[in-house]
C-alpha cells in the first residue's frame, strides 16, 4: 500500500517553506485579510448560539462513537447505498482510488483522449492527486467549484481546505481569468469575475457526461451522501451528469440523518460564518429519470485505518474539514497554506498529513505550532490539536533517537544535557553561573545579540536580556542567611 497525500513527499521542511512565504507581502496581506473576515463572521455566528458548547460536545461524541465502530457503519452505509442503486468501491490507497475512477470513466465515457469530466468539492481527490492521474490517462478534469477553478486555471495549489484560493486577491484572479479565458478587458469587480466564471462553466456543466464529487458526509442508515456549498456549482455537478462518481474518505460516515442536526449547525458556522449553507445537496443512490442514472462511491482509506489504532491519533479523523482552525491559527495567518507542503494545511494539516503517511514525510509539521490552543478553542468537534501535535512530536523524537544521526544531532544532545542539568539543582546553579560567565563574549550594549547555534535563531531578530548578576535563588539564599533579621525589619516597617 502506498499512501500519497498531495505533493507532501516533495515538499521542503516547514521552516524553509515558511521563510519564503514570509517574503511574499501580497500573499501575507491576502491571507491576513481573508482569515480576519472569516474569523469575525464565525465569531458572530457562534456567539448567537447559547448551546454552542453543547453542540461541540455532541459533534465530538458522534464522531468518537462512529470512529470506534467505523467498520460497522461503513458496511451499513455500503449496504444501504447499494440497495438504493449506488455501487460502492473500496480503495486502500491513492493508486487504487485513481484506477477505480479511471476505469469507471472509461467504462461510461469511452477511451477517446481529451474526455472532459467535471469535478466539485473533492479535496480528497487532491489528496490522491487524482487530476494528475486522470490527465496521465488522457482524461481532462475540470474543477467547477469557483475557488478550485481559480487554482486549476492558475496552475496553482489550494492553500486552504475550505477557501482554496484564499491566497489570491481579486486582481490576481482577474489576471488568471484574462489569460485563461481570453478576456483581456475583464475587470476585478466581483460581478464581472462571477459572470466570467459562470459563462466559462455553464457549457461545461451541460456537456459533461461524468461528474466527480467529494462528500461532506455519508449516512450509514440510509446510504445517502451529502455535499454542502455556497455556489450551486456543486448542485449542478452532482445532478446534471449521467454518471456521478463520489470519492469519500472513510472517516466521513455518520450513523444517522439525525446526526446532521449537529453537524449542519456547526459546520457552516465554523467554516464560512453562515447559519446554514446556501446549498445542501443530499442524495441516495439512483432515482430513475432524475439526476445521474449511475452512481459510484469510492470509499478511500489511504492511511486512515492506521490512525484508528491509537486513541490520541484517532481524534484526527473526527475532522469535518471546516477550516476554522486554519483561520484561527496565528502561524497559518503568517505563512498561508502552501508552506505546509500539503493540501491539508494549518493546524489540522500539521497533524493529518504526517499521520496518514506514518511520519514518512512532513516530519517538521508537528513542530509548526506554538501550541497556543486557538485551533482547539474553535474546533467544532473538539479535536485537541495541541495534544495530538505533542504526541506526534514525541513520535518524531523517538524515531530520530533510534538513528545515529538523530542521537548525535545538536538538538538531541542539547536536550539530553539540559535534562541532566535539570535533574540536580546544584548542576542547575552551576550551569547558571557558567552561562553568566560565558555570555559576556556575546554581550553588546548589555544585550545578547549574537548567540551561536540554535540560539542564533533567537538573536538574529530578537535581543535577549543577559542572565542577571544575582539570580532569584542567589537573592533568596542571601536573604535567608539573614532571613529572620530582614523579615523582622520588614514587619516593623509595616507596623
Amino acid at each position, binding site marked *: 500500500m502506498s499512501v500519497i497525500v498531495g505533493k507532501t513527499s516533495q515538499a521542503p521542511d*516547514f*521552516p524553509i517553506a*515558511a*521563510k519564503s512565504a*514570509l517574503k511574499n507581502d501580497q500573499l501575507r496581506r491576502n491571507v491576513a485579510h481573508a482569515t480576519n473576515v472569516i474569523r469575525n463572521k464565525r465569531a458572530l455566528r457562534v456567539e448567537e448560539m447559547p448551546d454552542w458548547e453543547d453542540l461541540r460536545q455532541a459533534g465530538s461524541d458522534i464522531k468518537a462513537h462512529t470512529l470506534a465502530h467505523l467498520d460497522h457503519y461503513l458496511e451499513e452505509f455500503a449496504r444501504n447505498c447499494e440497495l438504493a442503486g449506488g455501487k460502492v468501491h473500496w480503495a486502500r490507497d491513492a493508486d487504487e482510488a485513481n484506477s477505480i475512477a479511471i476505469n469507471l470513466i472509461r467504462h461510461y465515457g469511452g477511451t477517446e483522449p481529451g474526455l472532459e469530466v467535471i469535478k466539485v468539492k473533492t479535496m480528497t481527490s487532491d489528496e490522491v492527486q487524482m487530476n494528475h492521474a486522470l490527465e496521465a490517462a488522457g482524461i481532462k478534469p475540470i474543477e467547477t467549484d469557483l475557488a478550485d477553478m481559480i487554482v486549476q486555471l492558475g496552475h496553482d495549489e489550494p492553500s486552504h481546505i475550505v477557501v482554496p484560493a484564499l491566497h489570491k486577491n481579486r486582481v490576481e484572479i482577474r489576471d488568471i481569468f484574462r489569460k485563461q479565458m481570453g478576456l483581456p478587458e475583464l475587470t476585478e469587480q466581483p460581478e464581472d469575475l462571477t459572470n466570467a466564471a459562470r459563462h466559462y462553466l455553464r457549457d461545461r456543466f451541460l456537456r459533461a457526461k461524468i461528474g466527480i464529487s467529494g462528500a461532506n458526509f455519508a449516512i450509514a442508515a440510509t446510504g445517502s451522501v451529502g455535499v454542502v456549498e455556497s455556489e450551486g456549482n456543486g448542485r449542478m455537478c452532482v445532478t446534471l451528469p449521467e454518471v456521478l462518481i463520489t470519492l469519500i474518505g472513510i472517516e466521513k460516515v455518520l450513523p444517522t440523518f439525525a446526526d446532521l442536526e449537529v453537524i449542519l449547525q456547526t459546520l457552516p458556522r465554523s467554516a464560512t460564518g453562515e447559519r446554514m449553507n446556501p446549498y445542501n445537496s443530499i442524495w441516495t443512490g439512483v432515482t430513475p429519470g432524475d439526476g445521474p442514472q449511475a452512481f459510484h462511491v469510492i470509499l478511500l482509506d489511504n492511511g486512515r485505518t492506521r490512525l484508528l489504532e491509537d486513541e490520541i491519533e484517532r481524534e484526527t479523523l473526527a475532522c469535518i474539514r471546516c477550516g476554522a482552525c486554519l483561520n484561527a491559527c*496565528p*502561524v497559518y495567518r*503568517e*505563512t498561508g497554506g502552501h508552506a505546509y507542503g500539503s493540501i491539508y494545511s494549518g493546524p489540522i494539516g500539521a497533524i493529518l498529513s504526517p499521520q496518514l503517511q506514518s511520519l514518512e514525510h512532513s516530519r517538521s509539521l*508537528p*513542530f*509548526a*505550532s*506554538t*501550541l*497556543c*490552543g*486557538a485551533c*482547539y*478553542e474553535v474546533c467544532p468537534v473538539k479535536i485537541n490539536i495541541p*495534544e495530538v501535535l*505533542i504526541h*506526534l*512530536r*514525541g*513520535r*518524531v*523524537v*523517538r524515531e530520530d533517537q533510534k538513528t545515529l544521526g538523530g542521537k548525535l544531532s545538536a538538538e538531541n544532545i542539547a*536536550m*539530553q544535557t*539540559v*535534562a541532566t*542539568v*535539570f*535533574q*540536580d*539543582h546544584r548542576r*542547575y546553579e552551576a550551569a547558571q553561573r557558567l552561562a553568566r560567565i560565558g555570555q559576556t563574549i556575546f554581550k553588546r550594549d548589555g*544585550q545578547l*545579540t549574537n548567540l551561536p547555534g*540554535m*540560539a542564533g*535563531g*533567537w538573536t*538574529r*531578530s*530578537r*535581543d*535577549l*536580556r543577559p542572565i542577571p548578576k544575582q539570580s532569584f*535563588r542567589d537573592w*533568596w*539564599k542571601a536573604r535567608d542567611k539573614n532571613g529572620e533579621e530582614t*523579615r523582622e525589619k*520588614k514587619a516593623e516597617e*509595616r507596623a
Partner: protein
Amino acid sequence: MIERLGHTVEFPVQQTCCGQMHYNTGYHREAVPLVRRFVEMFRDAEAVCVPSASCVAMMREHYVMMAEAENDPAFLADVHSLLPRVFEFSELLVNRLGIEDVGATFPHSVTYHPSCHSLRMLHVGDAPVKLLRSVRGLNLLELPNKEQCCGFGGTFAVKNPDVSVAMLTEKDACVVQTGAEIVTALDNSCLMQIYGGLHRSGSKVRTMHLAEILESIEPTGGLA
C-alpha cells in the same frame, strides 16, 4: 508581595523545571524525571504558587497522563493530590485568597497581554485584569488583538525563528500602538519574546511580570 499579605513563602532551592520544554518538544521520556522531581519537591505544600501560566498548564494538562503511563500508583496518587494545590500567581490571589487589591501603587500606563496558556488552558479570565485595576495610579490600556499568540511557543521560537518573529512583529506593533509604558503578562517566556522584539526595534516599552507590578508600593512605582 505574598509576604506583605501575611503569608509565609518557602522556596525549595532543590527545584528546577516542570518539564514543559522537554515534553512539548517531544522529549517525553526525558521530561518524566523532572515531573517526578517537581512532585517530590512540592508534595507537602499547602499551596504552590507558580508565576508562569504555561508551567501550570503543563502540570494540569499532562502530569496525570504522564503518571498514568509510568504505571506507578504512588506517583499517580501524589500527582492527583498535588494538582488541586497548584495555582498560577493570579489564580492564587484572586481565586484561592479572594484578593483583588494587594495594596500596590504603580503610577504608570500598562497594557496586559493574556498569554495563550493562561487564557485557553487555565481560563484565568479577568483575574489579572481585576488585580491590575486595583493598583493605585495604574492606567490600564487595552491591547488590540490581545488574544493572538506572541509567537514564542518554547522551542518553536528557535525551530521556526522566521514565523516566530513574524508573529512577534504583529504583537509588538499592537503593544506600541497602545502607547503604554509597560507590557505585562503572567508568563516570563512571552515577555522574553515580546521584550526581544521591542528592544531590538529600539522601543522604550518595558516588559514586567504581573508580580513585579503588584509588588510595588512606592509612590513612584519604583521604576528607575
